[in-house]
């Protein structure tokens, strides 16, 4: 009895194994490289830095008059428009409180963007559906002839789940 038939059967089986391993490797590689990089936290930090740079010059707060507040986005060179129409992908909130306690408001808050993101943050802080950056810094604000010490707290939230998370 010759073994030629047995070798041919094993060859087919060998190819099955080969395709199985190749398929698994392709799946693993595509699963890993198919995931997008999540840059939302960096984006949120950049937004905070941009706002801080806009509000404070040489350690002193700029004048927060009606004109500045009405055109806040334009004055601070911020643009919340994205390819996703209708849904707000960003939220920005700026608080001005006294130093060092931070209990009393010195100026009214500046709030812009999608309010739902903040509510979402309060409910699920570590959700992968958005990333946030919460930072504060010390500054001096004009108070008549003198200067007042204040703390500026900036919260920025970035959603953009479709582009950054899978």
């Amino acid at each position, binding site marked *: 009895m010759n073994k030629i038939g047995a070798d041919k059967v094993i060859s087919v089986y060998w190819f099955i194994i080969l395709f199985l391993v190749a398929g698994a490797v392709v799946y693993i590689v595509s699963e890993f490289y198919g995931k997008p990089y999540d840059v939302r936290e960096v984006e949120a930090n950049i937004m905070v830095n941009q706002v801080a740079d806009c509000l404070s010059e040489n350690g002193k707060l700029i004048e927060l008059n009606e004109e500045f507040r009405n055109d806040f986005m334009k004055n601070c060179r911020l643009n919340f428009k994205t390819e996703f129409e209708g849904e707000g992908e960003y939220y920005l909130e700026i608080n001005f409180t006294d130093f060092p306690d931070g209990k009393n408001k010195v100026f009214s808050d500046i709030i812009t963007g999608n309010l739902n993101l903040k509510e979402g943050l309060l409910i699920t802080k570590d959700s992968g559906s958005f990333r946030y950056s919460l930072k504060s810094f*010390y500054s001096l604000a004009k108070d008549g002839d003198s200067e007042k010490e204040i703390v500026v707290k900036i919260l920025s939230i970035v959603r953009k789940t479709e582009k950054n998370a899978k």
Partner: protein
Amino acid sequence: MQNSFLNTKKAQVGDTMTWLVATLIIVFVITISVLAVSISPKLFDKQIYLDDKKKDLLAAKSISGFLENKKNVDILNKRDYSKFEVEVKKLISVMYPYFPFTKDFSGAWNFELYEGEEQRIRILTYSPPININLEFESKFVLENDKLRFWAECSGGRCK
């Protein structure tokens, strides 16, 4: 005798057993790999951090605002170091209430003041482990005084 010799199939069984064991091992390894990729998203977390930051903008703004304050400069000029230390501690407490930048890293701001070569104030709000990197260092010179703010973080780097 020739017939009995040709009827033996032990060699074929040997081949098959080898392949059977090899198949089991291959399937096991592939299963582990696929499960690891599918079930463990944290292993392949592709969140980006800026590792190469040298300065921190908000810290620099806070410190420059603090030193712009005439009250603090007067305290320093009067050489009232204990009072100055109190003011610096207040500043550090508000600079970042949510330090660090991400939930995975902890750290704090520290401060030193030198009058000439003599150290007058040293505030360490974070106990440094060995071989830690000093991050986001800012130095200020006011006449004969040298002030230094820096951050220290666990996990190797401040983010």
